[in-house]
């Protein structure tokens, strides 16, 4: 059966409307692992199990609840050890339970397993086929020999000759031969019956093997599912580890930058940075230590490939801190301008850079702080403009 046919059968399978042969094909296919079919199947199954909602709702008998709850505390149902497979059934549940934990929804498998006929009693067996047929079935060589002998015997003249010989030679021998023939026939019948019983047993074994094959298929499918889940979890873990690595790098970089800032502040070098820190020391501290602060990593564009910047934004107070490094020196009459971009760019302030090519900006009243999609830095005429006009030097998203 090709995949298209199998896929077409999925809805029937989900509804329990597939014939046993097709069920087997389907289960083999699903056990082999077909994610597309598994997904579709689950959808059909879910849709099928919605069907009872369309029925006029009946209310279960109020007494049933207490019956169920009482039965729950009964010896058969209460202890976890007894839970596994002990049916405590005052009601005749007719067939072996289909495996409800497999993805086979409304399976008829247990019912459709062929019933093997019980071995027939000897007397009935030996009554029907002739002993000759039975002998042929058990021991062809012996049968052949006997047939040949009988053929010869039945040929008249030979029979006469033979009878004569027998009579002449020994009547006792003739009688013994008769007894021997009867014995052979009886043995043949016995052999045949043993053979039949064995064949029945083999067939039963085969049915059992088919059942265990089915169980193996179920297990395989379960294994496949578990494997898929594991792969997914592993991927997730890998991604997390990667993200963590990036985070660590960033943290290290920030630490370095903070150290630099601190050193500059202490030694009095980089006066501009120190001034910024002094002016907004409290703000900066608050921003950097706030648990709700967000950070964006800005990368240099083609205009400034080595440049990078960090923006910390504290949404509660709408304050932020911007720090850039490796920006090119500003041409005369120009400034860098930081933009927050929501639907459109809005200026977050202008800044210049120091001799170490570092720029800093303390932001207050950041517009639309929760809707920021992107930050960008452009080169603008001194004093800045309401809309960006110059080349973009840095961009990054929070």
């Amino acid at each position, binding site marked *: 059966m090709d995949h298209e046919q199998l896929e*077409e059968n999925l*809805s*029937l399978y989900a*509804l329990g*409307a597939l*014939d046993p042969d097709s069920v087997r094909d389907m289960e083999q296919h699903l056990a082999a692992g077909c994610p597309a079919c598994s997904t579709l199947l*689950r*959808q*059909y*199954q*879910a*849709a*099928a*199990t*919605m*069907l*009872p*909602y*369309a*029925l006029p*709702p*009946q*209310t*279960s*008998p*109020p007494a*049933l*609840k207490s*019956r*169920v*709850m009482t039965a*729950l505390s009964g010896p058969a149902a209460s202890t*976890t050890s007894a*839970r*596994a*497979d*002990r*049916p405590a059934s005052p*009601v005749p*549940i*007719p*067939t072996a339970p289909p495996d*409800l*934990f497999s*993805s086979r*929804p*409304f399976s*008829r498998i247990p*019912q459709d397993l062929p019933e093997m006929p019980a071995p027939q009693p000897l007397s009935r067996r030996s009554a029907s086929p002739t002993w000759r047929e039975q002998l042929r079935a058990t021991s062809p060589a012996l049968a052949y020999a006997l047939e040949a002998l009988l053929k010869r015997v039945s040929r008249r003249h030979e029979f006469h000759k033979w009878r004569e010989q027998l009579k002449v030679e020994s009547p006792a021998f003739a009688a013994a031969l008769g007894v021997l023939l009867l014995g052979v026939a009886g043995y043949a019948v016995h052999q045949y019956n043993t053979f039949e019983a064995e064949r029945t047993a083999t067939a039963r074994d085969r049915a059992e093997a088919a059942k265990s094959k089915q169980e193996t298929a179920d297990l395989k499918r*379960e294994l496949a*599912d578990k494997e898929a889940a594991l792969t997914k979890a592993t991927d997730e873990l890998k991604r997390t580890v990667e*993200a963590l690595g990036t*985070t660590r790098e960033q*943290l290290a970089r920030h630490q370095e930058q903070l150290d630099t800032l601190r050193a500059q502040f202490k030694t009095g070098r980089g006066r501009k940075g120190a001034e910024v820190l002094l002016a907004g020391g409290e703000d900066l501290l608050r921003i950097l230590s706030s648990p709700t602060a*967000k*950070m964006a*990593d800005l990368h240099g564009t083609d205009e400034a490939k080595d440049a990078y910047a960090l923006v910390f934004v504290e949404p509660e107070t709408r304050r932020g801190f911007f720090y850039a490094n490796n920006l090119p020196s500003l041409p005369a009459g120009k400034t860098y301008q930081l933009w927050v971009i929501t639907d459109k760019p809005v200026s977050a302030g202008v800044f210049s850079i120091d001799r170490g090519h570092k720029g800093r900006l303390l932001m207050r009243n950041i517009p639309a702080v929760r*809707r920021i*999609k992107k930050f960008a830095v452009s080169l603008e005429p001194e004093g800045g403009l309401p809309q960006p006009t110059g080349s973009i030097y840095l961009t990054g*998203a929070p």
Partner: protein
Amino acid sequence: MCPISIHPIHLFAVSGRKCYDAPVSPKHPSTVDHTLLARVAKGDQEAFERLYEQTSSLLYTLVLRIVGKPADAADLLQEVYLEAWRKASNYDTARGAPMAWLVTLARSRAIDWVRALAARGKDVTASLDDTPASDLVAQNADALDIRAANERQALVRASLKSLPPVQQQAIELAFYEGLTHTEISERLHVPLGTIKTRIRLGMEKLRDGLQTLWEEELGIPN
């Protein structure tokens, strides 16, 4: 912007990653929640009682539809619940929604029952008249559950009704009578291929029509 979080991974989330706000609450509350079944699996009788309250009406409706007689339906349903109780610890959440599991369990047992009775040659004619009046009194279900159940019911009914009657018939014969497509074809004297097509088209439409419901049941986020 990503949700504000103390966790550094979120704080330094790689740009471009899509972030969601708090999960949107579903339109219909889920029928049975996985955590409830997990508690049942651990042997929590209180949880089981809650499970019973949430599901017994639907399961009883289903079982009664299949077996026909209220007394039989009640006996059978008791067995179904006890089996659910015994097997809850084996239930694998990855396999599907708890409600689907229970519906499947109840349906299988009910169909087995009917087949066993039929095999013994007993009369299995449905008779709703046996229903005692007391059964028709609604059990404890809060207003939200009722509304959700009504919405679900309306949607499933509408979806079924939107099918051509022959498709609906084929689906119902398979689901409630447990017939295979071959058996349906024999019973209706309609070619096998036609029955297959009816079921397939009907099921496709149902799947599409009930998407919001099964997505919710399967826990697929909107």
